[in-house]
């Protein structure tokens, strides 16, 4: 990645300052694959991916289409962006251009510069798109085939939709979930989901294949064509679906974690697979591992860091938890052990009010429910306990802030500060309209209130103010020895916690691409700032 001009200027200024490293300097970006000064990718999740006839990669998401030029191993930067109201539900290449299915079932053709509506499906359905030049077998029926329950529909060039075929009713509890066209001979392949997963093949003339390994037991999340063959993504592998399936060996291996909910896949001219899903668009690289991610992380409500460098962020209106590695490259895939996306308490409707690291694990306060959870991002697999009710006293109703250590929990609820175990004396009068909390260590909690920043020493049954600083903070973070704040005017400041003396500051506007801070965390010698403008996390080095 080239170093942007503004960053160079920052480094040069630091060098000219006499080689004395500043107390705070910008270090890098997490979670946003676009270069720092470029317009960010606004999506965390992607709904489709395709490669057009010119070899460009296209990603579909809630905002529309974005193109990328693929050049070797470099992280591709976004090129053309074509908005589409309602967002993209599916995206496929047809050998020359693209076919996109919108959220309302509209079908659009794109030749690289604009979208042209070519038809309408009953709703956003799984589809298989034929190569533009291919009219063999099932491909002769139209520019795409769609799966509507048990029905196979075709969308003709005239924009009309007709029913071609009715599949046999699946076993109770199962449904057909994916459809694919085999570019080798025009056969149709249909995938059936849990609890009776299987792949069925209908020959070019429509007859079901009942030999050569068909129908085949097994789960396929996705069927994708690379223009030469049809592939199934399932069970962590890409498997090439040859006509004689029984001779097919185990497919290209991946480190594909379960539950990334793949929505689309495309293969580029270098033979690499790109997969769209809950992590944006990820690339399957050398050795069968995910090695690159295109996307941003949206607006982050809160950040917390564990000693091993795991950074957990609340995204998507604090309903989804992300895991990043503090040392990762900007375009690194999000860290995931299994079964992403992770929802608060495992509940897709729940939202978090606060997130904190308590010295032992991550705590998540559930908004409106007075529930406190332990979240284990390192154990998210089958039969593992990702979410456990946190031990200890119940959370106050209306909690909006949380700070914790192995022995203490402090909360702000309905404008009141409280501690568990209860801490008395000296705090009630000192704290006025508390808003933010951070735990420096097991002995000190910091509170941002109406009058500034207050440090409170805590001991068994006693809490005493230690120092106060006049400052206005929107965001607050602390660890042993250091605290950090962001002010409304975009100033990042760091403070010694022993006496509240400031020890460094930086104007966030000087960061390439600017910054609209939305969350803050500290980890060792680093400050992490969530940037709502750049849809990313910024990393700063502390040297004091």
């Amino acid at each position, binding site marked *: 990645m080239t170093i942007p001009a503004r960053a160079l200027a920052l480094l040069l200024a630091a060098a000219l300052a006499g080689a004395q490293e500043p107390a705070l300097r910008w270090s890098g970006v997490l979670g946003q694959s676009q270069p720092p000064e470029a317009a960010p990718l606004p999506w965390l999740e992607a709904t489709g991916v395709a490669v057009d006839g010119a070899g460009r990669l296209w990603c579909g998401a809630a905002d529309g289409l974005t193109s990328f030029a693929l050049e070797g191993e470099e992280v591709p930067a976004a090129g053309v962006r074509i908005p589409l109201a309602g967002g993209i539900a599916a995206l496929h290449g047809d050998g020359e251009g693209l076919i996109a299915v919108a959220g309302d079932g509209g079908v659009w053709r794109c030749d690289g510069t604009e979208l042209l509506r070519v038809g309408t499906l009953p709703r956003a359905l799984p589809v298989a798109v034929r190569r533009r030049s291919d009219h063999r077998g099932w491909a002769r029926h139209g520019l795409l085939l769609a799966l509507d329950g048990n029905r196979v529909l075709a969308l003709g060039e005239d924009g009309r939709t007709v029913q071609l075929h009715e599949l046999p009713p699946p076993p109770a509890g199962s449904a057909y979930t994916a459809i694919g066209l085999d570019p080798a001979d025009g056969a149709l392949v249909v995938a059936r989901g849990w609890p009776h997963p299987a792949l069925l093949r209908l020959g070019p003339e429509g007859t079901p294949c009942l030999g050569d390994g068909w129908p085949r037991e*097994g789960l396929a999340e996705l069927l994708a064509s690379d223009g030469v063959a049809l592939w199934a993504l399932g069970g962590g592998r890409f498997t090439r679906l040859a006509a004689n*399936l*029984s001779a097919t*060996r185990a497919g290209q291996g991946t480190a594909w974690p379960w539950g990334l909910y793949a929505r689309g896949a495309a293969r580029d001219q270098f033979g690499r697979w790109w997969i769209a899903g809950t992590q944006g668009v990820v690339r399957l690289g050398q050795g069968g591992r995910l090695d690159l991610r295109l996307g941003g992380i949206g607006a982050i409500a809160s950040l917390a860091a564990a000693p091993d460098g795991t950074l957990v962020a609340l995204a998507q209106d604090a309903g989804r938890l992300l895991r990043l590695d503090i040392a990762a490259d900007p375009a690194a895939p999000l860290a995931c052990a299994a079964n992403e996306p992770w929802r608060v308490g495992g509940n897709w409707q729940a939202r978090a009010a606060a997130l904190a690291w308590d010295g032992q694990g991550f705590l998540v306060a559930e908004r409106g429910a007075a529930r406190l959870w332990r979240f284990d991002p390192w154990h998210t697999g089958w039969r593992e306990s990702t979410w456990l009710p946190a031990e200890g006293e119940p959370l106050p109703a209306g909690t909006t802030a949380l700070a914790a250590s192995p022995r203490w929990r402090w909360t702000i609820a309905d404008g009141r500060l409280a501690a568990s175990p209860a801490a008395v004396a000296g705090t009630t009068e000192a704290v006025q309209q508390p808003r933010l909390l951070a735990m420096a260590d*097991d002995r000190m909690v910091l509170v941002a209130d109406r009058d500034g920043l207050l440090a409170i020493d805590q001991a068994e049954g006693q809490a005493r103010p230690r120092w106060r600083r006049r400052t206005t903070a929107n965001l607050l973070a602390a660890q042993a020895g250091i605290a950090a704040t962001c002010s409304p005017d975009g100033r990042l400041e760091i403070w010694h916690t022993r006496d509240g003396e400031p020890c460094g500051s930086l104007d966030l506007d000087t960061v390439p691409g600017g910054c609209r801070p939305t969350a803050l965390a500290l980890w060792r010698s680093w400050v992490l700032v969530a940037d709502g403008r750049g849809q990313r996390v910024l990393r700063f080095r502390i040297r004091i």
Partner: protein
Amino acid sequence: MRPLLPALLLGLLTAAEPATTAVILSGSTSKPERNVFIAGEAVTLRFEVRGLPPGREADPLQLDIVDEDDRAVASQRLPVRADADGGWSASVPAPAGRLGFYRARVRLGAATLPRLVSRPAGYLTYAVVGDPATRPLLPPGESLFGLQGSTWPGLAACLGFRWTLANFRWGELAGKRPEGFPARRDEAIAAGRRLPATRPADLLPDGRPWTLYPIATRIVQVDPAWKVLAPGTEAHGHGRLTAEGEELFAAHCRSLAAAWAADERDLPEHLYEVTWEPVHPWGFKGEPQDLARVYAIAHRELHAGDARARVIGPCLADAPVVADYERLHAHRLFDHVDGISFHPYIALPPEPNGLVERMRALRTWMRDRLGRELPLYATEQGYSTGEQEAKELLQAQGLVRGQLIMIGEGCRLSFGFYTHDYIMGNERGYGYQYNLDPRQNWNPAVTGPKPVLPAFAAMTRLIDGHRPVQAIDWLGDTAMGYAYQRGEQVVLALWDWGGRPRPVDLPMAGPAVQVHDWMGNPRPAALRDGLLHLDLGPAPLYVTGVPARLWGAGALRPLTPAATRVDGFPGAPLTIAAELHSDPDAGLEGVLTLVPDPALGLAPVERSLRLAPGQRSRIDLELGLPIAAEPGPHPLNLLLTVQGRVVAGAGVLLTVRAPVVVAAVGSTFADGTAALQVTLQERQGRPAQGRVQLVVAGVPEGRLEAPFTLAAGATGRVLLRPAAALDVDALRTYRCSVAVLREGLPALRSEHALCFARAARLPRPPVHDGRLGGWEAVPAWNLHGRSWAVRKPERCRGRDDLAVSLRYGWDAQHLHLAAVVRDDAHCQPYDGFPTWKADCLQIAIDLDAGRSIELTGNELIDAGRRARVTEIDFALTPLGPQAYRTVSCRPALPAGLIPPTDLPLAITRTALTGGGVELVYEASIPWRLLGGEAPRAGDEIGIAGTVNDIDEAAEQEPWALGWFTLKDPARFGRLVLAP
């Protein structure tokens, strides 16, 4: 027609029929409890019907008997006339002339046989197997097959398996207390019972015993109520043993071994499988080193108590994945087993899912990493049909082929799973038999066979007692098989899993050759021109009477590679040489083809040949490896084709080596500043240049890069200097990935461990004054809090409970150590060896970190060659400061108290205002006391340590803060001696 009319018509039709009770159809064979017949026994089917209109003719009973492939065997239509009670019954003879599986589909009008427990509706089944009385009694060392599950008298004999699993679960043998086994054994003996108990012999039809051989399993599985496992680590009876748990387990193993040795005097080996599927997290929640510790104890004690003990494990739950074994090997688990046991579960069919490759990868791994191949024991392998008839054929073919692969790839024995269907959670349909007993989920009184049962019986009859000679994997991309030999008898097992029949021709001779189908039915083999023609499919074919001179271990092979393992480099030419040898009675004219691994992207290479009778010839085949050839193993196949038919084949394993490899990665100093160093070796014999890229995982700004140039065959060091000091902990091990980048060549990547700990060179020996005199310029490393807790972390109560500030220094004579420990309560009631149980400093040093040391097995020689690992405990005891060596590397440096004249030591204690104490440990350890001499700047040593803490003498075990992994030299950190 208006919609109303069909409804009216329907109503009229139904109204015309008299009201009837439901027709109930039932059927059974003449062996209704088990439905398994021995060849030569007559089979009768009996059917009963109830609920018919009394006294009237009914629909005839349609009986269609088919085989496992649903091919028709016999059909019959029986007239049915109900008696006065509406019932009818009949018995008919059923076909049983061939060994195998029979499915009798029965229908009477709309009625059919109802579903019976796990057997779907519509049919009953029976099987015909060979006479078990004709099977030889094979000793344990030659018997290959076992089957898990409850049995009925004669089942083991009919199926031909002798191995069984005996449940020696600690939790069950010992009862309510972990030490309870000896007393319970005495009670059992007094009552005339055996404890531990193993399965009694099965019975042949004539009443003679069918000997069974037990494997004792689940040795360590505890009763969770005992509290011998560390909290949070228990699953499925496995976990990290507490210190007390280790002692109890050791005692139990000793007692158990002595007991079984006394009970089983006839067995030449006693197999102990210590764990059962200890898979994280559902089968075991501890760490790999905890598992290794279990095996270390079990191996020591079982061998001590039983001279015939063979400890096997760890019994992982799937077909081998080398990475899983490597993780355990990192903690030396395989030093404590005599064999590897596992449950090779894999999706069926096994071949395209990689079962063969995984087995071969495991054996390669053992040779490379353990230096030897341990015996392999496959103690469970099964497949669930979900109680669906449509999956029974796959179950039978897949499991039988899986067994043949296990034995063919060298397993010592192989178990199937399970004898009968049962319901447990979502598990249904694993059985080799249907469960037909509605009252019993386990040990049913009534069972019926599935296709896998007679197929398994045929396989054991033909293969048991044989050992694999060679894999036959050159007949086609989906064809394979093995040759097995017992004495002068050779049996071939062959199949094709590709879904289409594959014709093959095999060199063959002799009048005794027979081909058996997979149920064991033989037919004479027709040979033509010295070849046996077979049409291979998914059901194995067996060829018996095979001449050993053609297919046995000492056979004269027409094709032999000059080397079965070769090395190559990307972009370099490669020569594969093959020796050809024609039969003394016939010449040889054909084509030799070299088929490379498809991953290399190379076309096959062919060479025509002609040999006179008895002639030998060597042929060289040339390959040019592509530049992009991936380093690692690549199979090459050699095929000899005569008149278009493959008549011989062989395999060569090509290992593509990286031309430049990373030999070492570590910390160093350059011009007095800290840097990282990558040592490269050029192996291809050509000059090389490029860039080295190093990324320290988890460290921001931890990506470093530098150019390199290497002469041919040279070793060179590349310095990488970070622009700013890396934000790392000196007392942690980091992973780093290193990429060697050269233009036009694929990147070569490797992973390494990296430490950043440096010991300062002290200009003068420090003064042991409790005030850290002499350490002023040395930065301290601070440890506190749960993230540094390495033992019982749940007891850590934060910095106020325990905090450590640690320093290492060195000079030509000593390794110096200073530690300031703040503790809320100092408690050390012991002296001598037990000081580790209370407040102390445990320090380990390895002077040979990173060096490979070869042991000879001769204890006298090896005593002076072992790695110089020392562990010393420092404690302020009631008798004053003590240094106690607990781990010694040399007989001349024995374990025990180290006098202060040999090791200067001071430990001072100061009470802190506000509570708690501060202890200052200052020690100077002479290098000679560690088995070494004066080191040099830049040398690396291995280190680890803990600070142990209790607050009251009554606490049985300490918790501890620690750095790196004490007790495991393979996971020590590296301390660089700074200049």
